[in-house]
């Protein structure tokens, strides 16, 4: 069976618009630069050698970060732009839910716009006549259908656009992140409509950032990254691979944030004053530096330095300390803060009734958390070494950033290990 959509070695190169492009005929003529300007000197490949095939009747997801070429791929499939090289083949009538209501004219009524939009999408007048009621009911715009479209809210506008596009009855439906158009109820209606399409053996190409949707709705998925195909096949596997890469990206971001914060704080003149308010969240580093914290790293369960942890994973804070002279009055402290600066947890060796006796030379301190039971979010870390009376040797305030990820989406800060139990007459849908 021939696939419904087939991309073979597709490359799409855009000319990067720089100041040099011929903005006006005059400049082109004056500088005799038409020929030079027409030659693409600076180009940008939105897609590079991408191949995939969507079988007939499949629901196919395309995921990837912003700027990864998803929308370009969709435009190529829709035929709006042509590939620079490679071939795009589509079998059957396409309807693209890309820009909803793109053809609407604000001055004329919703009714007239439905007809014109339908004709643009390839329907005949008679076909629109037959489907008109269904379209209006789907968009929930019966009372407003004779008002000019300029009086519509953006939600109404989108709903009408969606309703027309989906009633074209295409063989191939292209969807670009349009499920965000309406309220909860409308989104459900759209999903039902997609389900109906699938039952009738139509092909759906879905571009979205909603990974859950890809996992539940799609039969297959591809992951585009920087214009190249990174993974394809089973949606769960592709989404998994994508999430891993996103974490790696975040990891890098956290690493640079931390490095920058530490560097900036290091330049500051150390103020031996203890800050008056422990709970005021301002970044910085201060202290007399008789003992210095020379390195801080966060280790994951396998002992590797990391900046991204999963809720419930172990976390170890590893401090390298250097005492310039032997001291006997010292307290190690740790503080965990949420991104908003709320203190989640703070402790020190004094509070836990460990009295310092001797510290000299290079030393290591490890603070191990068996389960990091925090909800998803970005957190910051305080580490400090100070005297019992609070006089700081070296205080690192909010310099270290890490991220906690969770597959679930609870709110708050603390995620206690928990389980639900129900009596047998409480039944939930089985997860697919």
């Amino acid at each position, binding site marked *: 069976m021939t696939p419904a959509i087939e991309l073979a070695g597709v490359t799409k190169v855009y*000319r990067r618009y720089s100041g040099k492009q011929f903005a006006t005929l005059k400049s082109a003529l004056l500088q005799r630069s038409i020929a030079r300007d027409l030659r693409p000197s600076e180009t940008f490949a939105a897609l590079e050698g991408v191949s995939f095939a969507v079988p007939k009747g499949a629901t196919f997801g395309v995921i990837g970060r912003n700027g990864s070429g998803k929308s370009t791929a969709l435009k190529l499939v829709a035929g*709006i*732009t042509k590939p620079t090289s490679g071939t795009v083949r589509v079998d059957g009538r396409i309807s693209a839910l890309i820009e909803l209501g793109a*053809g609407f004219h604000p*001055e004329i009524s919703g009714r007239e716009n439905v007809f*014109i939009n339908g004709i643009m999408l390839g329907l005949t007048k008679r076909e629109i006549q037959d489907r008109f009621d269904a379209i209006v009911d789907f968009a929930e715009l019966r009372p407003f259908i004779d008002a000019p479209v300029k009086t519509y809210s953006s939600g109404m506008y989108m709903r009408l656009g969606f309703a027309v596009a989906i009633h074209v009855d295409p063989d191939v439906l292209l969807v670009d992140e349009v499920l965000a158009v309406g309220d909860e109820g409308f989104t459900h209606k759209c999903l039902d409509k997609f389900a109906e399409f699938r039952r009738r053996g139509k092909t759906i190409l879905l571009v979205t950032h909603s990974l859950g949707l890809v996992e539940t709705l799609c039969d297959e998925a591809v992951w585009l990254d920087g214009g190249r195909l990174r993974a394809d096949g089973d949606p769960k596997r592709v989404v998994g691979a994508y999430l891993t890469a996103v974490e790696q990206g975040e990891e890098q971001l956290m690493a640079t944030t931390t490095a920058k914060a530490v560097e900036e704080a290091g330049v500051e003149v150390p103020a031996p004053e203890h800050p008056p308010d422990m709970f005021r969240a301002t970044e910085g580093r201060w202290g007399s530096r008789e003992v210095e914290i020379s390195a801080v790293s966060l280790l994951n369960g396998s002992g590797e330095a990391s900046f991204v942890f999963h809720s419930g994973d172990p976390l170890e804070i590893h401090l390298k300390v250097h005492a310039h002279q032997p001291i006997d009055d010292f307290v190690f402290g740790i503080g965990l803060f949420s991104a908003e600066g709320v203190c989640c947890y703070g402790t020190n060796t004094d509070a836990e009734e460990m009295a310092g006796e001797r510290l000299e030379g290079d030393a290591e301190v490890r603070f191990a958390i068996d389960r990091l039971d925090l909800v998803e979010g970005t957190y910051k870390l305080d580490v400090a070494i100070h005297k019992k009376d609070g006089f700081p040797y070296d205080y690192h305030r909010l310099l270290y950033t890490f991220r906690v990820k969770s597959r679930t989406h609870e709110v708050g800060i603390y995620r206690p290990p928990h389980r639900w139990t129900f009596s047998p007459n409480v039944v939930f849908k089985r997860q697919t």
Partner: protein
Amino acid sequence: MFANLTNLIRYRALIQSLVARELKARYRGSVLGFVWSFINPLLLLVIYSFVFTTILPNETPGVQPYGVFMFCGILPWNWFATALTDASGSLIAGGNLIKKVLFPAEVLPIVSVLANMVHFFLGLPILILFLLVSRHYPRPTDLAWFPVVVLVQLVFSAALALMLAALTVHFRDIRDILTNVLMLWFFATPIIYPWFQPNVQRFRWLFDINPFTHIAVSYQEILFFGHIGQWKWLLALGAASVALFLACYWLFDRLRDSFAEAV
């Protein structure tokens, strides 16, 4: 290219509804609505008549009343000039359609030409009324030529509209250049002066190479003078317009793929 040209026929329902939309949208929200299509040319005619019979009387024999004579050329010229101005901006104005939807771009300039043709038709009753009042009765044999002139002008305008629309996407200056060129062209065409004036005849060749001369003179002969002497020129222009249309369509087709990116 020819496959795309036949597509143009397939799009006629689309063109039809877009022309209707254009006309509806233009007067939507105004109290008089379509009546403006009659009032605008009427006011124009009244002004010209007043100026050239009272303020600056033009007594040239054979072209009386002068206002009505001028109006025979001004009405089609307005169609031509507005169509080209609209068309040159049509792809940019319809940018959403070209960028976001699979949409046959050539429909847009053609809709500009056709929508303005409808306005031209709506102005005709006013002209005919004044012709009859001033006792200029066009002969039925001449009137048979009327659809021919309209058709020639339609093909000629559509050709230029396609070319201008495609080029304006890349060179936005064209819209400003066009305004000035049209102004010059208007005065270079025997519309507000009769072509048989001795001064016109002295530069005869200049007027002969101006395509709109033959269109304007044809309208004047058919409606005002009642004898068509220009028909050979008209038919030649018709044939040339078809060739020009094909050439412009070819250019448009060549540039088509750049529209979605450059708009």
